[in-house]
C-alpha cells in the first residue's frame, strides 16, 4: 500500500492532569505567617539546623519537626548564589525577559530561599555575600497561591524582591556552605 501522507504520521495529544491537595501543616502555617510578613522556619531538635521553608523534617538527622520547633527569622540575609536566566519558550512559559534567580540565606537560617529576585544593584554587580532585605508587598497584594508541597515554589508571592541594604558584604564563611 502507498505511504500515508507525512502529516498523518504525527499525532497531537494534549495531556492535562490536575492535582489538588491541601498544603501540609508546616507549609500552611508558614503561609499564614508570610501573609503577616513573618518568616517562620523549623529548627531541628536534634542538630539545631534551621530550615526555611520548613520541611516538616530534617533530612540530615531524618527526624520529624513540628509546630514546637518553629523559629521566627529576620527578613534580612545574604545572597549566596544567583543566575541570570534567559527564559526559553515552552508551553505555559510566561517569562520573556531575563530574570534573576537568586538564593538568599536569611540570618539565622541554614537553608537559603531559592528563586528570589534581587533589586537595588545592577545585574553586573550581583555577587555572593551581598546583604539584602525583603521588600514586602502590601498586605493585600501578598499571595501564597503558588505554594505547593512538592519542593518548589515554596515562598509564594509575598515580596517584591530582596533589596540590597548597602551593608558591607558578608564574608565567605557566611555563604560558602550554601552555593545553591
Amino acid at each position, binding site marked *: 500500500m502507498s505511504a500515508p501522507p507525512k502529516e498523518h*504520521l504525527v499525532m497531537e495529544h*494534549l495531556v*492535562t492532569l490536575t*492535582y489538588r491537595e491541601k*498544603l501540609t501543616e508546616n507549609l500552611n502555617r508558614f503561609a499564614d505567617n508570610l501573609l503577616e510578613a513573618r518568616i517562620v522556619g523549623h529548627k531541628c531538635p536534634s542538630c539545631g539546623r534551621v530550615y526555611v521553608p520548613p520541611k516538616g523534617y530534617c533530612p540530615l538527622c531524618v527526624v520529624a519537626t513540628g509546630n514546637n520547633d518553629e523559629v521566627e527569622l529576620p527578613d534580612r540575609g545574604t545572597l549566596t548564589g544567583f543566575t541570570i536566566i534567559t527564559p526559553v519558550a515552552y508551553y505555559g512559559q510566561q517569562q520573556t525577559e531575563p530574570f534573576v534567580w537568586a538564593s538568599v540565606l536569611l540570618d539565622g537560617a541554614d537553608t537559603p530561599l531559592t528563586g528570589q529576585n534581587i533589586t537595588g544593584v545592577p545585574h553586573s554587580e550581583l555577587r555572593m555575600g551581598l546583604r539584602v532585605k525583603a521588600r514586602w508587598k502590601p498586605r493585600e497584594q501578598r499571595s501564597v497561591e503558588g*505554594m*505547593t508541597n512538592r519542593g518548589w515554589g515554596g515562598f509564594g508571592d509575598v515580596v517584591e524582591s530582596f533589596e540590597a541594604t548597602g551593608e558591607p558584604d558578608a564574608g565567605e564563611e557566611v555563604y560558602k556552605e550554601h552555593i545553591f
Partner: protein
Amino acid sequence: MSEPRVTVTKLEFPYSRTLGPVLGAFIGGLREGKLLGIRARDGRVLAPPVEYDPETGESLGSEMVALGPEGTVVAWTWVGQPTAKHPLGRPFSFALVKPDGADTAMVGPVDAGSPDSMSTGMRVRARFNPEPKGLVTDLTWEPAR
C-alpha cells in the same frame, strides 16, 4: 489555625507523537473511513495493528489488512457517567471489539444508548468521525442494524 489551603497544580502539555509507518497507516486510515489491521508472520491478523509481535517481539513489517466495517463484541462494560476525558459525552460502553477479518480484539467506545442494548457476541459497526482529528477517537462503534 486556619483550614489548610488547597493548592492546585496542573501538568499540561500538547505532546506531538510521531507514528511511524504502521501506527501512521491505522490513524491515517481512520481519516479515510478505513479500518486497518496488520498480518503477523503466522498469518494471524492483529487489530489494532502493532509493529511487533506481542508474544515474540518479531518485527511485523507493514502488510496492512482492511478490516470490518463490522465487528463482534468480545467483552464490555458500561460507563453510565462519562467524564470529560472520555470519547463520548453520553453514556456508552467501553468494549473489546474484534473487527471482522481480525484475530484479536481492540478496545473502543460503543455508542449503544443503554446497557440493555449491549451483549457479548453482539454485532457492531465502525463509525468514522467526519471531521477527523488524527486520533484513535476518530473511531466509534455502534450497534449494527
